């Protein structure tokens, strides 16, 4: 199939009118330091799990911010909570706590 470039793709775009940011706001309440993130990518660049997998903590928390929660719980399992990301974040985001809270919220709100 790939040879001919045919594939059925689900349309991918962010629809900011439809998306629900409820879980994102729960996250901000529990870990307000996340409001300060300015998307520099230091956390994902230094991440221990990132060295061996395609896990990107910045992509995960940005997806969360955009209300795109699908598959995030699976991805977050790759994090080993080492805390290196927290050490380098120039905006002082408490990433370790952020990760734990993302997991908890995803778990609590599972449909």
């Amino acid at each position, binding site marked *: 199939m790939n040879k001919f470039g045919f594939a059925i793709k689900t349309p991918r775009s962010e629809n900011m009118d439809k998306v629900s940011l409820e879980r994102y706001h729960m996250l901000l309440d529990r870990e307000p330091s996340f409001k300060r993130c300015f998307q520099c*990518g*230091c956390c994902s660049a230094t991440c221990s799990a*990132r060295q061996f997998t395609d896990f990107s903590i910045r992509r995960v928390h940005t997806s969360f911010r955009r209300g795109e929660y699908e598959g995030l719980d699976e991805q977050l399992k790759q994090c080993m909570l080492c805390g290196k990301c927290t050490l380098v974040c*120039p905006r002082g985001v408490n990433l370790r706590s952020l990760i734990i809270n993302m997991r908890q919220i995803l778990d609590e709100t599972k449909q």
Partner: protein
Amino acid sequence: MKKVAIIGAGPAGIEAASVLARQGVQVTLFEKSESPLKNIQDKAFLFPNFQAAQEVADDLSGKLLTDGITTILGVDITDLKWQGTEWKLIDSKEQTYVADAVLVATGYQVFDAHRKEELGYGIYKGVITSLDMEQMIKHGKILNANGDEPKRVTFLQCVGSRDEKSGNNYCSKICCVTAVKQAIEVRKQIPACEASVFYMDLRMWGQGFEEMYRTAQEKYGVSFVRGRISEAAATFDSRIQLKSEDTLMGLPLKMTTDLLVLMVGMEASCGTKALGKACDISGDYGFIRTVSPHLYDNDTGKPGLFAAGSCKRPMSVWDTVNDARAAALAIKEYVDSLPQ
């Protein structure tokens, strides 16, 4: 005749001194170094027009010869005291001077890059600061750790600025355009050498800056990567390996470079911090606080005590010079209002 003391012989102090002297005010200019303008002398070319820093320094030095200015070098003013009608200045050797009005023009110092240990400054020879790069450009000697011509030079923005870990949340304002300026210079001096800039935001706020950025892309092939380098380490052959995320691609990025240039921010100088504290005019991050940034940006709120230039916040040379002229006018009005 009324006497004005100016502390710091950088662009701010010298410009204010010459304006005041031409208005018939007697000025004494104190400089702690043995020569004036060291923060201009250590630069190669100045953005946005690539004018030789030496030329600007010579022009300013010439103004020191204006009648009515006494320049005293090698004097570090450490304390200021209001005596009811005049200011007493005290230097590090306990000598004192008096003046009717004082202008604080004590400027900035660059962020000490050793404080960002993960970036390897002072550990690996291939990691240098933007100030070291100014020297290399000035002397036409851009060389890697082994003393050879580099094949790749990489600039990292916001070192010691916009960084909670170094205690500086502010933007230093001049380093984005300085990186573009230096990347162009590298490409001019060594056309075979690649130049890349790692940025989070490119702040091209001044006239001509955006055009410099375009020229860097179009004419000099400088590449721009959106990401912040989080770690640097040396390779066996003394090159530097760096780790970042390419945030636009969402992918981790590894790269080896001959020189990693840390764009260090502007902090309040030691003199600025000390005098700010001594007179209770110290504001955010140790810069001098003024009454209001809109209308009274040279007034400190203390009688006869004024401030100009980069002792207030990061500033370019022309912002500094304009600010100094504004301060000179405020001081002239103040001394004219005093009883004869």
